[in-house]
Every structure is written in structure tokens, then in C-alpha cells.
């Protein structure tokens, strides 16, 4: 009897290649949050982020024969997610960025459907509101970054990926990754310093 939770990613991929559906489910459960998190912060629209996340997994599993086992499975998965998201962003230029819903949402229902629920640790209501507001402004600052900078810094600081892995995922040289992250940090820090000054105003 296979205990799927104890298997590492490559072992689960091996089982998937032999047609084990439960191994595929375990991989989806394991990676849906990090993939969705990156994709959502790239496209800023819950429905589209879910569609792209879904498409990422479907393409991943339907092309398992192309997966090179010398790479980390997560790198390959993020690479597919990144390519899909960048394609989507190229097709549709975002006009505004908000956690409060898609810029295309017209009615309240559409706005509700496309907005995201931020899950925060248990805090007092006023503290929670303040932290959510700060988080919202930080999300906006992230959204103003160039797509490449955004991906690189999210992979580095939210998902904790190594520089080399980010280079693999984004298919760019290591030096470029470092430059992107350096610039993204600078721009975010400028945004954050604005946030710190705001309460005093």
C-alpha cells in the first residue's frame, strides 16, 4: 500500500507515469497553493488565476513523457505556469491592478467572483484590517512591477526558490535573475517607504 504523502515529488511522478491517479491528486494538492499564489499575483484576477492554475496542472500531467527527471518537478511545474501566465499577460494587457477584483468586472457579482480572499493569521479585527490594508498596498506595489521582476521576486521571497531554479523556470541567465530581483527590491522598497510614511500624514 503506497502512502502518497510520504513519497517525494519524483516518486509521485513515476507513479503518475504508470497511470496512478492518486499520485497525480497528491501532486495537485501539494502544489496548487504555491502555483495559484504566483499566478494570482501575476494576473490579479481570481477566476483567471484558477483557470491558469488548472491549465498548468493539466498540461503538466498530459505531457509527463516530456519531463526530464534531472530537473526538479516543481521547477518544471512553475515553468509551465510561468509560460502560460506570460502568454496570458501578453494577450491581455492589464489596465489596473487591485485585489478587489478584475478590472473587467462591471457588476458587484463579477467583482466578488474575481476578487481574492486574503487569509490572515488570527488577529484583533482592527490589527487584521490594518495588516490587510498594508498587504493590499504591497500587493498593488508588486502589481506595478514589470511581469519579469514580479515573477522573479515572488519566486525568490514568497516561494523561497534558489536563484538557479528561478533562472531555470524563467529560462534566463542567472545574472539576469539577480538583476531582476535587485531592481524589484529597490522598487518595492520605494513603495514600502511610502507606506511607512502614510500613517504619519
Amino acid at each position, binding site marked *: 500500500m503506497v502512502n502518497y504523502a510520504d513519497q517525494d515529488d519524483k516518486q509521485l511522478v513515476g507513479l503518475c507515469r*504508470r*497511470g496512478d491517479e492518486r499520485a497525480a491528486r497528491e501532486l495537485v494538492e501539494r502544489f496548487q497553493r504555491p502555483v495559484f499564489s504566483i499566478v*494570482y499575483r501575476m494576473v490579479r484576477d481570481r477566476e483567471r488565476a484558477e483557470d491558469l492554475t*488548472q491549465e498548468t496542472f493539466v498540461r503538466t500531467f498530459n505531457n509527463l513523457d516530456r519531463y526530464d527527471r534531472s530537473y526538479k518537478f516543481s521547477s518544471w511545474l512553475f515553468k509551465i505556469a510561468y509560460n502560460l501566465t506570460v502568454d496570458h499577460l501578453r494577450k491581455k494587457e492589464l489596465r489596473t491592478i487591485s485585489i478587489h477584483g478584475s478590472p473587467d468586472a462591471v457588476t458587484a457579482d463579477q467583482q466578488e467572483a474575481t476578487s481574492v480572499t*486574503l487569509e490572515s493569521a488570527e488577529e484583533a479585527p482592527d490589527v487584521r484590517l490594518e495588516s490587510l490594508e498594508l498587504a493590499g498596498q504591497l500587493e498593488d506595489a508588486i502589481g506595478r512591477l514589470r511581469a519579469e521582476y514580479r515573477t522573479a521576486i*515572488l519566486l525568490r521571497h514568497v516561494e523561497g526558490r534558489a536563484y538557479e531554479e528561478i533562472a531555470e523556470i524563467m529560462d534566463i541567465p542567472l545574472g539576469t535573475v539577480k538583476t531582476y530581483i535587485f531592481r524589484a527590491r529597490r522598487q518595492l*522598497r520605494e513603495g514600502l517607504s511610502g507606506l511607512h510614511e502614510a500613517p504619519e500624514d
Partner: protein
Amino acid sequence: MNRNITTDTHLTADELDLAAANAAGLVDAHRIHVGTCQQCADGVADVREVSVALRDLPVVSPRPGLTERVMARVRLPLPWHRRAVIAARERKGISAAAAATLAALGAGGAVWALQFPALRPAALATWIFGRAGDLLWQAAIGLGRVAYALGLPDLASAIGADLTLGSAVAGLATIALVSIGSLSVMVRLVSETQPALIRAS
């Protein structure tokens, strides 16, 4: 990696990360440099502030049901034995004819073997072992002839002189190894996953 830092050079991206995390991997020279270089101190502050802010971003998760939606669209490869069953189901006429032929051959063979004492199991086993011994002798003699033809009379005579039980066993082991190797290659070829096959039920 320990890199010499001078007043003209600054910390690399990796070293800034280490300094920001106050990690043990940071060498003393870099720590001292950060204390005296405004540019690197700013860099460390950037990394620290941004990484803390990004780490504290609220968790965003897809709505429940993503796994089911993904699995409904995934087409995993099927194991070879399940493919064989499905193929048999799809070709009922051919399968029935093949099963009937096999059954007829089996029944006919059983009747024939019972009518001829020489084909009863014990007699058959004796005959097979006898033939195997003959074959081994023939193979050894053939090998000697090849060696002689290749201009290696010493080797040929050595083979002839050493045709003992030991060489027969070694020959048998070689044949067994080759057979096992061939079988495993065949099994791998048959069980190798095929891309884009029928979806796992």
C-alpha cells in the same frame, strides 16, 4: 564561497541575501564591509525589508474543488496490462478467436501428450536436459572453431581442453543472464508509458 572584499568591490546578490538573513554562511570580511560601506548597507536593508514584507503576505488559495477540476481533464498513461485489457475489450471478435485457438491448441496438445509416453513430463524433462547438454557442447566446440578461425589456436585448444562441468555451468549462466536481460528489455518496452493515452478511470 569566500570572496575577498575590497573598498572598490561590493557584496554580490547572494552575499546580500546572507547578510540580510544574518546567516552563518556570511564571512567576517563581508560583515565588516557592510558596516563600512553605505551602498552595501542599503542593499542589505533593501533585502531585509522586502523579504520580511513579502514573507508576511497573506496566503492566497484557490477555491475548493480545483483538484477535481484538474483530474477531470487529466489523461494519465495507463499501465500496459490495463491497456491490453482495454484493447481486448475493443477487439472482442479477435480476442474471442485468439482465446478459442489457444484453448483448442491446449486441449489438442494435452490429448497428444497423454497418448505418447515419450511426451509425458518426466520424459520430456529428461529429453530437454539432454538436449541442453548437447547444445552446450556444440556451443563450446563452435566457440573453439571460431577461435581457431581467428588465428587463436592456443585459445581454441584451451577451450577444447577445458570443456568441463565448470565451463558448461558458466555457459549456462551466461545464457541465463542474456535471457534475463533480453526479457527485462522486452518488459520495459511493453510497459513503457505511452503519451496521451486513454484517461485513467
